[in-house]
């Protein structure tokens, strides 16, 4: 393809414009990806030269590492519970806030703020809230005669505590649903009302299909995010008690920066990538069955 002089100039300018990203992509993404894939087949403590060990890391991970199995289990349970619960709660909140109520902006802020605060500071606050003796959560439950719960110190309750905490941060998803809800044309509801539809029928047959692309977005982002929990578990439990909150990325961090097993950690990272990819593809492939795009070709 031969370009005219002006088009050549434009192409050159184009490449100059995208050069910061292109450079960053090659040096900080593509290069590191290949390097990390190679490192995952080696034993490497970051100081000496990597020693090639073939599939040894992957073999150990899959057949001989109960911590990996535990980390995967914890993360999957967390993802498969916190994401659906969060989805229902944030959608319910958004529907409530979409009722033309007075003071909607204030409520919106109140629910949204937890989603933006520094994770480290929030982890501290939750650590105190979950304290078995004198923590405010047990104090409140005590009013309803609920016996004292060990929360983060009890292996059976530690992971549910994290799920509870994630529900508290549903405001982020709520904001997106709210925008989706406000984009639903009101004529549809008016027409349904004339036909005598009940509120539930309206929600089920108008609202849900109309915001299905927003649900899809939140679902994908939620799954990706829930697989990458790190700060809260690092600050609050370090994976304990009895590995009950050993989230995958926390385990990866420990392998890399505490035990300096970089090869092993890179193998863990690639497995994480593949798992996230599989989940995303499943959601993507199922989406043609339930996501409705109005008058536009699916991107």
């Amino acid at each position: 393809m031969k370009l005219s002089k002006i088009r050549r100039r434009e192409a050159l300018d184009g490449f100059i414009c995208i050069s910061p990203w292109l450079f960053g992509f090659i040096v900080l993404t593509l290069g590191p990806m290949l390097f990390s894939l190679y490192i995952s087949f080696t034993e490497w403590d970051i100081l000496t030269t990597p020693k090639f060990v073939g599939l040894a890391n992957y073999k150990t991970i899959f057949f001989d590492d109960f911590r990996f199995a535990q980390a995967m289990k914890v993360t999957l349970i967390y993802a498969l519970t916190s994401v659906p619960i969060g989805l229902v709660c944030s959608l319910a909140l958004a529907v409530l806030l979409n009722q033309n109520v007075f003071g909607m902006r204030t409520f919106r802020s109140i629910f949204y703020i937890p989603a933006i605060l520094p994770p480290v500071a929030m982890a501290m606050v939750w650590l105190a809230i979950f304290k078995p003796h004198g923590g405010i959560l047990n104090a409140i439950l005590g009013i309803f005669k609920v016996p004292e719960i060990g929360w983060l110190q009890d292996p059976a309750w530690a992971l549910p505590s994290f799920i509870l905490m994630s529900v508290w941060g549903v405001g982020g998803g709520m904001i997106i649903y709210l925008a989706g809800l406000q984009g639903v044309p009101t004529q549809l509801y008016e027409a349904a009302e004339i036909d005598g539809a009940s509120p539930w029928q309206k929600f089920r047959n108008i609202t849900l299909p109309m915001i299905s692309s927003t649900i899809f977005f939140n679902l994908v982002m939620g799954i990706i995010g829930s697989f990458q929990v790190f700060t809260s578990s690092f600050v609050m439990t370090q994976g304990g008690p009895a590995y009950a909150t050993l989230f995958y990325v926390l385990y990866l961090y420990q392998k890399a920066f505490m035990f300096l097993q970089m090869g092993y950690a890179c193998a863990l990272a690639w497995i994480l990538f593949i798992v996230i990819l599989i989940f995303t593809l499943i959601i993507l492939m199922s989406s043609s069955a339930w996501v409705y795009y109005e008058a536009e070709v699916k991107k």
Partner: protein
Amino acid sequence: MKPNRKTKAIVYTLLFIGSIISLVPFFWMLTSSFKAPEFVFADPVQIIPKPWLFSNYSTAFEKLPFALYTWNTVKITALCILGQILSCSLVAFGFARLRFPFRNTLFVILLSTMMLPAQVTMIPQFKIFSSLGMYDTFCPLIIPSFLGSAYMIFLLRQYFMTIPMEMDEAARIDGATTFQTYWKILMPQIKPALATVAILAFMGTWNDFLGPLIYLSSPAKRTLALGLYAFQGQYSTDWNYLMAASTVTMIPLLIVFFAGQKYFIQGVVISGVKG
């Protein structure tokens, strides 16, 4: 749709209960930060601090140099915001306004990098930055922001696409170069989107924990998030000071949130509804 009185009552009740659940942790944090240590976990719960110890804040500041940590965080954050605005807008302009070979392929690659978990590239990046002698400096935290981020490039590109091409053509006829068009004609048009980018960059950098944790080692270089974590390690039983320190790290975020609420929400919404 005008909700009737009964629905309204139900909606308000649910919203109030939700608000209380949402606010209790803050309320607890704020009141505890003024309490005497023995009352933080008192039974029954002390709702209003008695006595009010405003000195918790000054003591927390004496125990750890939070002013220094704040200054470190401000420096890193300011440079990251600058970097993201300059690089992302330029790259987005390229993708939105100029024609060049492989443009669509490259854009698809850019979008697909959003799916890549940071952990895959974390260790090699660490190796690169430390062999460049940048371990324990702010450079590894700042430099990537000058190379753009996929999400914000996407956001700005969408925004550029809404501006009519006639703007560029008129500028070109008047003799403007591509870069003059970008800087003088288009940049002023996308100010609201730039505000969104600035706020997202602010939030991401201010709240970042893993980056500083990996790259910074000397106490004098700590960011607020890292400093707060170190504080917990040293004074894990002094909950009143911990809560004072937590409150301090949150205040700048709250200020920015209330000042730029519109752009905050806009940024999230653009991605979720139109993406």
